[in-house]
């Protein structure tokens, strides 16, 4: 009897403990949960993260401070910050946002991939005074800009002419030639088609029309607008939204029986009569292949 009593007492105590535990959890999780007042950007809602990225890119467009933009993007806790930037740019374009609004995102993604700011601006020089390490970036930008635009002609060795007495050398040429400035085509220079190659790789996307745009130094160029037209419509898109495939890369899926024409908005290059090529595998079976168009500035 007393054993039964003891067991019942323990059960009651356990029950009271569990009820108390439940009440405590209800209070701490629902009635008065931990309140966040010092949140970090990584837990922002996805639309606010998108807004945060837009502001980071806009700030970067103004300062060209790539290090700082990279650190700011890391705050968002994305596994692949560059991929997220590109994906957001594509989402914005798909939703009809103007390219001017999307360009800073694409530019930042491209520059993060390259590892340097592609458009040094005078603003970056004013940042030399800031103590956050901006000066390193600015100096690199300056060097890049100079090597890009100045092609130094090597200084020839002076020719020594010996006359009757070879004791005093006479230096025939004393003037060091000045650096020769090589004109570099501006961003608006026209692109011309330099390659049109059939791509026959079994297993890849059928009818894939790929574009690569390069400047005069064979460096890929982002942000080039391309218009593909066919009898029933047209599509507009830009290079640089798949930086993992190259900053000057863009692609388009062609239908097998449709004739397309391609126009590059900047410079007006026009390529008519593009059709999906037919490839043949080693077994003699035909399949739709792809096409690679390469454009380059002079």
């Amino acid at each position, binding site marked *: 009897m007393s054993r039964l009593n003891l067991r019942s007492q323990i059960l009651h105590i356990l029950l009271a*403990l569990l009820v108390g*535990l439940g009440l405590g959890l209800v*209070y701490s999780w629902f009635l008065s949960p931990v309140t966040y007042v010092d949140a970090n950007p990584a837990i922002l809602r996805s639309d606010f993260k998108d807004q945060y990225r837009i502001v*980071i890119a806009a*700030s970067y467009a103004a300062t060209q401070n790539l290090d700082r933009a990279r650190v700011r993007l890391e705050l968002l806790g994305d596994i692949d910050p560059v991929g997220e930037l590109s994906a957001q740019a594509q989402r914005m374009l798909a939703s009809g946002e103007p390219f001017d609004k999307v360009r800073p995102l694409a530019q930042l993604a491209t520059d993060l991939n390259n590892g340097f700011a592609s458009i040094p601006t005078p603003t970056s020089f004013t940042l030399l005074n800031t103590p956050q390490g901006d000066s390193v970036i600015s100096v690199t930008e300056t060097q890049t800009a100079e090597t890009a635009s100045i092609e130094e002609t090597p200084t020839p060795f002076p020719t020594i002419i010996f006359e009757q007495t070879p004791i005093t050398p006479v230096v025939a040429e004393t003037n060091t030639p000045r650096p020769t400035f090589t004109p570099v085509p501006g961003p608006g220079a026209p692109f011309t088609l330099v390659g049109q190659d059939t791509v026959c790789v079994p297993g890849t996307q059928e009818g894939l029309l790929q574009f690569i745009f390069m400047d005069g130094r064979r460096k890929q160029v982002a942000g080039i607008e391309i218009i593909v037209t066919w009898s029933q419509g047209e599509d507009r898109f830009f290079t640089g939204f798949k930086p993992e495939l190259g900053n000057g890369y863009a692609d388009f899926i062609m239908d097998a029986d449709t004739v397309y024409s391609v126009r590059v908005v900047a410079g007006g290059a026009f390529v008519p009569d593009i059709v999906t090529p037919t490839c043949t595998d080693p077994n003699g079976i035909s399949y739709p292949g792809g096409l690679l168009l390469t454009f380059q500035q002079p």
Partner: protein
Amino acid sequence: MTSSNLIKLAIAALIGIALGLVYGWVVDPIEYKDVPPNILRADYRADYVLMVAEAYQKEIDSETAARRLAVLGGESPALVVASTLEYAKQNAFAQNEIQALQDLLTAMQTYQPQGNANP
């Protein structure tokens, strides 16, 4: 049930409540996801406003700047920038950053939303 038993039950319930509170507040508190920017920590908030100010230096677009600042909560854009400017001065921001915030503050103080423009 005797009073001593009732006391034992009450003590057990209190222990249970205490354990529940410790678990719910310390061991496994509610994890927040998808929060709005108005609860950002002060330094993140200041950095966000600074980015808006840096972008404004290039864009000179009060409308866009005000829209970007609006996500930080219900305060007026001028008030948001003013408090950030104060924070920047207290935390030794670079001179050009303070200048950018100052410019943005001036813009926000004179900014009239398009809907409120006089006819």
